[in-house]
């Protein structure tokens, strides 16, 4: 099974003076179980695309197939619950969606809506709150007494608590400190490795390099590239043309190269960079 978009168009405010096109003729196929990054500039259509995975927006024309569902312009709002149970979305700044009196109740909101019985919902909510580092003695407290970073974690736990097959993330680590960012991203990576599909919108190329398998590049509502991470960053000219960055390690290797220090492969992470630098130095020393 896979995720398939076929000629998907989306038009905002159709038939009003405020009409504009959010997605233009988007087609792609994603393999289940992969970690997919969606990149592109602000306003390129990333968030619009993400809302289609959950049928929060339905294509104006075209067809989407995922998790056993067909979504077209004619899809009605009935039966969408079972789709949304399978496709979870963590929106940007998800801490803004918390509402319940206690942290635990908020994390149980999704599971209960999707028909889990109360015991299982509680068990799942607790499991994910714990995994996200929320201390047990806080579960009965109001989420609004937490710091922003902790509220973010509660909101993420609230989505993971129904363990969606496909997990969509819209810049989940924006505004977090570097340590918190790493913690959260590694939780998502682990979730993918345990047999789920993860789709991540991000501006951070270092995260793309470190966590993703495949990349979708959007520009002005169009899909301009669908490829593997290694392939994407192998081509710095193309990236520069589209005002996209390389990961920090690759950028550094590029500067080294321009100054006469050539590495065999473009390193994507700091570990790879350090390895190839030291390897090269050892080769010379021998």
């Amino acid at each position, binding site marked *: 099974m896979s995720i398939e978009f076929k000629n998907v168009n989306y038009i905002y*405010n159709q*038939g*009003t*003076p*405020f009409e504009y096109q959010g997605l233009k003729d988007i087609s792609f196929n994603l393999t289940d179980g992969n970690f997919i990054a969606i990149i592109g500039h602000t306003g390129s259509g990333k968030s619009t695309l993400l*809302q289609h995975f*959950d049928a*929060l927006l339905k294509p104006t024309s075209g067809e989407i197939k995922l998790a056993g569902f067909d979504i077209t312009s004619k899809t009605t*709002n009935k039966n969408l*619950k079972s789709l*949304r*149970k399978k496709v*979870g*979305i963590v*929106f940007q700044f*998800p801490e*803004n*969606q*918390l*509402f*319940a009196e206690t942290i635990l109740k908020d994390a149980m*909101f*999704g599971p209960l*809506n*999707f028909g889990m019985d109360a015991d299982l919902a509680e068990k799942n909510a607790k499991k994910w709150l714990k995994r996200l580092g929320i201390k047990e003695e806080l579960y009965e407290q109001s989420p*609004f007494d937490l710091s922003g970073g902790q509220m973010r974690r509660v909101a993420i736990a*609230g*989505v993971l608590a*129904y363990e969606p097959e496909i997990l969509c993330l819209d810049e989940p680590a924006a505004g977090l400190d570097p340590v918190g960012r790493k913690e959260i991203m590694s939780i998502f990576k682990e979730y993918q490795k345990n047999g789920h599909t993860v789709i991540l919108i991000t501006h951070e190329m270092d995260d793309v390099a470190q966590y993703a398998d495949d990349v979708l590049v959007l520009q002005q509502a169009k899909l301009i590239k669908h490829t593997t991470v290694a392939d994407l960053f192998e081509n710095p000219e193309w990236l520069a043309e589209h005002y996209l960055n390389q990961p920090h390690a690759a950028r550094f290797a590029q500067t080294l190269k321009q100054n006469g220090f050539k590495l065999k492969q473009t390193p994507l992470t700091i570990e790879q960079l350090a390895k190839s630098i030291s390897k090269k130095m050892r080769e010379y020393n021998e």
Partner: protein
Amino acid sequence: MSKIIIGRYIPGNSIIYKMDPRGKIIAAFFFIALIFLANNWITYSLITLFTFAAVFATKLKIKTFWQGVRPLIWLILFTSVLQLFFTTGGKVYWHWGILNISHYGIENSIYIFIRFVMIILMSTVLTLTTTPLEISEGMEWILTPLKYLKVPIGQIALVMSIALRFVPTLMDETVKIMNAQRARGADFNDGGLVKRAKAIIPILVPLFINSLTIAIDLAVAMESRGYREGEKRSRYRVLKWSQYDWINFAFFALLTVLLLIFRNH
């Protein structure tokens, strides 16, 4: 929701856009008074012609105006029909119990219909071509005399302009929250009244909390930018009369004179 046109501004650059909001507001109110001068076919035709001229002068699509009238059309028709059946006088064409259709009834119901539609069209001309902020500033100027009654017009105007500034932000916020809760399986259109009312809580609570955050942030930013309550402030935005406003007033003066000449005395 995005199809409701009353009270909405659509950017444009026809002559009406260039008129001062104070002039437009005064003119719109004056128009309502003028309508009551009309009392025969000629004067109602004048009013209708004048309104359509204003509508065309905006250079906006006629469809947009129809969208403005449409939500009220049943109410207007209902009122007209009441007039039709309950007005007596002149030749009676039909009669049943207390209901009758008379000459005056037909005339009156048509007049009422025209009156309503023209008032809606003219106020739509105002709101489509004037930003809410301009309307608020125009109103502020019109209400300036209240200053002498110790009404803090300046502060009310600042509050109004900030409120208007944050309408789109809060609309965005609402959509985001609704989407987030929908994604978590919330259903807003399902079940009975109680269930639906309960379903609103996950939207209202975050919306309230987020508005509070915005308000606090905004107060902090305003204070650090030197805002002091009750202190004298200068004004950057000023309204200026231009030749377009004289054109505006000239047309209304002409209409007034014509109405006074042609109405039944």
